[in-house]
């Protein structure tokens, strides 16, 4: 269980996050939604150990985050950032291999290579592995980066649950790959792994998530089971637009129409 207790975060006089209390349980897919600038990425960076100058407490399975050393944390927590460029030539497979860095000292073992190839198969990116990362399209780069963070937490950790953070992983992907990626994420979730991701599309949240969290101006407005808490009123409150929820016969969850 990942617990965030009373998180307050300010930059200068700007309040980015206000008194956030939230638990992310393993075995579930958690989706964070909210308007631009509502503090989603800050929340993810605080929970994952990137931002350190916040007030409050973060617990990973009864260990305080600030007492876990960087190298150990990396063996059971990985993070996919939003797109950033790499100013040097690098092969996709070399980049994916970096996901295994926390697990070996100098030389990757056979197990590491097996995992790298399992991840490449899982994401159907075999045709990209020997390409230069910089020559790939935005969507292809996103899938290669996802392979890297997936390889990092691929095998069970001896002492800890695993946590996978994804900051807008669907960016740059066409609908086919958005669905494929979400299905992949669902298929890797087991009782010891929690996926915490930021998405913009409420319909994906309804279709795939176990828990949703709505942020607005740094406040957690609502959280819980998506089918229960996503209502036209909530969407109006958070995003200031009128929306309808439409039931589809034979489908367990409704769709949102704007």
């Amino acid at each position: 269980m990942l617990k965030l207790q009373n998180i307050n975060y300010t930059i200068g006089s700007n309040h980015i996050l206000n008194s956030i209390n939230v638990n992310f349980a393993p075995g579930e897919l958690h989706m964070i939604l909210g308007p631009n600038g509502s503090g989603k990425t800050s929340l993810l960076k605080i929970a994952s150990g990137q931002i350190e100058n916040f007030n409050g407490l973060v617990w990973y399975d009864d260990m305080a985050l600030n007492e876990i050393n960087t190298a150990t944390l990396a063996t059971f927590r990985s993070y996919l950032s939003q797109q950033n460029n790499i100013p040097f030539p690098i092969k996709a497979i070399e980049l994916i291999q970096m996901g295994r860095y926390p697990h070996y000292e100098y030389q990757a073992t056979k197990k590491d290579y097996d995992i790298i190839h399992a991840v490449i198969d899982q994401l159907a990116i075999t045709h990209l592995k020997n390409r230069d990362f910089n020559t790939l399209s935005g969507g292809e780069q996103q899938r290669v980066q996802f392979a890297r963070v997936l390889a990092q937490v691929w095998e069970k950790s001896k002492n800890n649950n695993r946590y996978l953070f994804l900051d807008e992983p669907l960016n740059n992907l066409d609908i086919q790959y958005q669905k494929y990626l979400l299905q992949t994420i669902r298929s890797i979730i087991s009782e010891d792994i929690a996926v915490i991701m930021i998405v913009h599309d409420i319909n994906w949240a309804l279709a795939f998530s176990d828990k949703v969290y709505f942020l607005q101006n740094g406040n957690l407005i609502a959280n819980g089971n998506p089918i229960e808490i996503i209502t036209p009123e909530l969407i109006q409150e958070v995003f200031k637009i009128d929306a309808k929820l439409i039931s589809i016969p034979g489908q367990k969850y409704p769709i949102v129409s704007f």
Partner: protein
Amino acid sequence: MLNKKNAIYIISSILLCLIIIASIQWGAVNITNKQMVEAVQHFFQGKTPSSIYEGVFLQIRLPRVILCMFSGAILAVSGVFMQGLFRNPLVEPGIIGTSAGAAFGASIVFVLAAYIPIEWKSLIGPLLVPLFAFTGALVATYIVYAISKSQQKTNVLSILLVGLAINSMGLSGMGFMTYIARDPQARSINFWNLGTFSGANWQQVLIVFSLLIIVILSIFKFIKPLNALLLGEDEALYLGINIKKFRRKILLINTLMVAIVTSFVGVIGFVGLIVPHIVRQFVGSDHKKLLPASMIIGASVLLMADLVARLLLAPSEIPIGIITSLVGAPIFILLLKKNLFLKADA
């Protein structure tokens, strides 16, 4: 065994051996194979050199070639380190002020040597110049690094501009030392400012050799952090790299490398820029391959430059820094053009 993967190491190693032999034999005085072999035999038999050729070989040519080779390897590695740390393919010690800072520090010792208490000199002796050079280089590098970090997004161009300013400060500091220097000191600063291996001796070889061992040992520790940094500082942290600790270590070692080399042979620019660039075309950016290959190619390139410096106007010598800048600056402009257009497209 000659697959594409290790072909670069084999070919560049053969090339390096050929250049070493050529560098030893050719010069103001040419040395034949026979004289070389005899000199080595006499040396191990404990005999005094029997001819002027043997003396030239043992006391002038050999230390020069070895010092040049080691310096080339160290400067190339320094370029790789700095490019990795700054995440910028256009930086190297000569461009962002590390060398200029070292040169300024060293020139202070040259000019003010007369005022330094004799006890100090005997205490730290040959390390006095490297010590001042180290301080100058550290201050210069740290300023550039701190300013580039204080920005939200590090930008290729802004680092170069800050580096340019720091470089100018180092050069003007050195200009001032030259101005207040008495004539023979000033001339030695000037010559050394342009880089030269003409003063190479065995003591310097020994110090640079020890440095090279430290560099090689640290490379093993640096491969993973440098690779992870290709993705960005946040990503490196998520991969379990303690960035703050790593940054301190690599800045310290890199400054030590540049300071020692610069204090012995002067400012030799662009080696740290061109060599990693060439090597990346063959092996990519994985530092496990990039660093060793850069050492071999760096040694070869600097030996070639030194050979040209010695032979072009023989028997007199051209400062080697002039040769490396003459070749390096146009390549730098090409790289600059390529990288700036890349940024504009993004």
